[in-house]
């Protein structure tokens, strides 16, 4: 994004060295826009405020280093869409984000990067023409900020105004909105975008890739039910861990199990906002430092993590699960037909019966034993009393 930073008139030589040392940082913001989170009568923070806070945050990120880059994704109930960088043909099609649209965005971003210092005209006109609101008001704003801000607001508007009730309704019950959003899809697209931007595919040695550009993901999540996406989310988490991309979670509303694991595994920050109205403050103090800086900081992240998993059979979060020892699938109860529902491994009936045994606390043959046992218990509970006393002295 050097093209739009307005510094083209400054002699480039004097800055060149400095620029190379300060590696650019790519931030991908994923905004959860599920209506179930934002559309309630009194949401913890209104969508408008949240977007404004995010824009302030995005602008701050861009202000830190003029080669910093940003991307904004919206995770809707069933679709994912790039808000920035926007699709080149802004208003021509209203089809939701799919592989095609991400390709367009990706190649556009890549062009900007490979070209390095492309001219202002190169990347800009389409954006400008596509944004009718960029009028006199924009003149007072730093150009790059304006481009991002306008694109995000505009694209979000386009996405949501075209959403119909049918898009967000549950298939079984058309009156009720789905509780989930495509977080796993958004994370996948974010990771692919990062991979393309950082040249992950073409680089030969893995270490150089991460050094070339630092990337991270910030997920602003409002929906609480992600159990159905357990496997894809876990896959994204491990991919991010391997790519050394931290996933930060800014959680509004109820805690979500897997997102804590996402932040913990990838070295990101998880904050469950106690005061969502102060979103700007949270973003600026907790989420702004980039990956390199974080090694020197104590991160404001939750220390206790919910490591529970969801069962594969009903997508429910389980406290005690049964794991197939062959394919590691998780189930909430021992299989009724003695075989794994995923890989069909037939389990040892002996082992299985161990899992389903009912505790027997009383010997079935009469009261004599029971009386004896009771006596033993009394005797047992009588002994501990002197023990602590002895220890105390």
């Amino acid at each position, binding site marked *: 994004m050097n093209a739009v930073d307005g510094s083209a008139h400054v002699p480039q030589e004097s800055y060149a060295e400095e620029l190379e040392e300060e590696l650019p940082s790519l931030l991908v913001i994923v905004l959860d826009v599920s209506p179930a989170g*934002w559309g309630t009568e009194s949401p913890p923070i209104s969508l408008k405020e949240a977007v404004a806070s995010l824009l302030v945050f995005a602008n701050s990120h861009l202000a830190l280093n003029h080669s910093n880059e940003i991307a904004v994704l919206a995770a809707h109930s069933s679709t994912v869409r790039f808000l920035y960088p926007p699709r080149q043909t802004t208003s021509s099609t209203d089809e939701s984000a799919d592989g095609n649209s991400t390709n367009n965005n990706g190649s556009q971003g890549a062009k900007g990067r490979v070209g390095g210092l492309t001219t202002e005209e190169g990347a800009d006109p389409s954006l400008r023409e596509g944004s009718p609101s960029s009028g006199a008001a924009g003149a007072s704003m730093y150009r790059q900020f304006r481009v991002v801000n306008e694109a995000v607001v505009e694209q979000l508007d386009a996405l949501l105004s075209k959403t119909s009730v049918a898009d967000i309704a549950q298939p079984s019950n058309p009156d009720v909105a789905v509780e989930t959003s495509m977080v796993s899809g958004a994370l996948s697209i974010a990771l692919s975008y990062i991979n393309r931007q950082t040249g992950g595919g073409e680089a030969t040695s893995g270490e150089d890739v991460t050094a070339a550009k630092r990337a991270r993901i910030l997920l602003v999540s409002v929906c609480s039910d992600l159990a159905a996406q357990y496997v894809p989310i876990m896959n994204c988490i491990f991919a991010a861990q391997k790519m050394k991309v931290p996933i930060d979670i800014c959680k509004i509303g109820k805690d979500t199990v897997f997102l804590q694991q996402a932040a913990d595994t990838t070295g990101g920050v998880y904050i469950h906002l106690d005061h969502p109205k102060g979103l700007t*403050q949270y973003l600026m103090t907790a989420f702004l430092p980039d990956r390199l800086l974080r090694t020197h900081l104590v991160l404001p992240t939750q220390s206790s993590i919910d490591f529970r998993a969801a069962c594969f059979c009903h997508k429910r979060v389980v406290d005690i699960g049964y794991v197939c020892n062959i394919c590691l699938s998780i189930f909430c109860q021992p299989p009724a037909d003695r075989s794994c529902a995923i890989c069909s491994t037939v389990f040892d009936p002996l082992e299985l019966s161990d899992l389903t045994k009912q505790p027997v606390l009383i010997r079935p043959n009469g009261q004599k034993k029971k009386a004896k*046992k009771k006596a033993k218990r009394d005797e047992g509970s009588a002994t*501990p009393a002197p023990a602590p006393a002895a220890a105390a002295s």
Partner: protein
Amino acid sequence: MQAPFTVPAQHSGKKGIATVSSIKQVFEWRPAAARDDSVEASGDTIVIQLGELSSLQASPATHPKARLKIKTKADAQYVFQLPNRANLDALKTVLSSAISAAQQSASTTAAAAAADSAAVAAGSVGTPAKNGKSPTKAAGDASKSSSSALPQNKGMSDAELLVDRELQQSLLKSNSELQQQFLDAVVKQSLPAEEFWRTRIPLLRMHSLVRTQNRGLYNVLASIKPVSTTQANSTGTETGQAQVKVSLSPDKIKDIFRQYPVVNRAYQENVPPLKETEFWSRFFLSRLCRKLRGERLSVNDPVDAVMDKYLNLDQDGLTAEERERENENTKVMRFVDIEANEEDDSQKAGNQPDITMRPSTQKDALSIIRTFNELSQRIVDIVQNEAEQPEEETEKLKEKELQLQDLEPEAAATRVELHLHRSSDSGIAKSGDDSSDLRADQNNHSASELLRNMKNSLPKGPINDLLTSTIPSSSMITHAQTQVFKLIVDRRHTEQEKNTTADAETPAADAAVIREMKLSHATAVEFLHHFWAAFLSGDPARAASVAQLAASVEKSKVRLQAIVDRHIESVANKDPAALEQEKERVNRYVGITLKAIDSACKTYKDLLAKQQQQLQQQLQLNGGGDHGSSTAET
């Protein structure tokens, strides 16, 4: 083994029968003629007590004749020739297991050690002059057969492991952490030892396996580091005068002989004229030693008339002619038989010979490679005793080795795709709606309402206004800031705790309390573990021990609580605020453990009450049925 083992065998040319009787504990050979004329032949009969046998030595598998040499502790030796190899192997196995059994009963020596000593003895006393190969092979045979005679699965079942006190003692000795746990739980808190071990059967099994392992062979020459007292040796200007200090144990000498038959041969042929110490000091200075170590030979190396004679002997210490003679009888495998594959010789098509087959190039490097390959091969041979593998199998193995696998077409990766099938096999499949209690309070909004609300809250108007209009109130900023700082402080604490085990900040008294806490925590966890194991076993026979364990769990709570209380008391004279803080801090340490204990106790008591009630009902029912009439009568 109870019935005597009998096999036909020749001794000094006479035909006869060899018998091993495990009951009488003797090995016996009597000539076949003895049956016709017992008086005359009785002088020829050989009877050896099994306890007197010291070593067995079989002729190598490649040898045309199947011979077994038996040595006694009195140093007498007998050679028997058997009709075929199968007989030889059978006799050897029987004998070696009988020997080890006899030794086990006779002395306290473990069978493994016996096998070891038998192996070493065979290696050292073998006569290498005749056949350089035999000592190593025989040693391998002896050690292998006697170790295979050890019952492999003895004492490995759960029940046997649980009662093997000696094994448990030895495991405790080797694992101090476990020993501490044992002391706390079993000795102090009177957890039955059987319960303690019941949850650690895999540990016991592993330890038992570890104990039966013997240390393998290693390159003994590399482990001997001669210390030269003059610098001259390294420059090589003084020949033979250099003083070398080498410490050699008899075991190491035996190992050298086993691994390097060349040295054995040199020793056998030269030690009567030379003194033993002189032999070794010359050996370690010689080029022979350098060669065997895999070091590069240079023209400056000292010359030694005696040792250099052996420089050109092959791996088994044979000269070229001896090797030739030896080879006449051995079958050359087809794949490495150059004569048999003459038409496939690529050199005839104009190719240069393989690098290892060229006469002059890189001779040094090659000899090093060869030395190490030979040594590795020899050690592998000693261990797995290749001779016992059938010929065809070896050939097949070699064939596999020779295949050019990278010329094979690449096999497509066969991934197994995992899909959930039969998801409807249990009735809960569609009960997803009731699972999430989160939904209940949110689902009263209809989809259209939600959507309308959200669309209404979309940002509208100029962006400047949007950004300036939504600055949070200062109280919100403070709240948010406070949460972030609190998270940072908490995080720092946990990170510190993770990094420092006993941090310097903690006062000594505190450290003592923490140690005590840790100990009683560990004990509590131990009891919880046993409690749940017994509780969930569903075994009526363990019902009594469940009750006992439940009591112990409760006890451990009292213990833990006592430590906490005492600690709080000790800081009670501080101001109340600090006291509260301390209470909270300590409770954070022990809270989870106490919760786990409470949960276990509650589960137990609830279920016990329920089952008692059931029992009562059952008794009443039974009583009504059986004695109903009698009670009515009285």
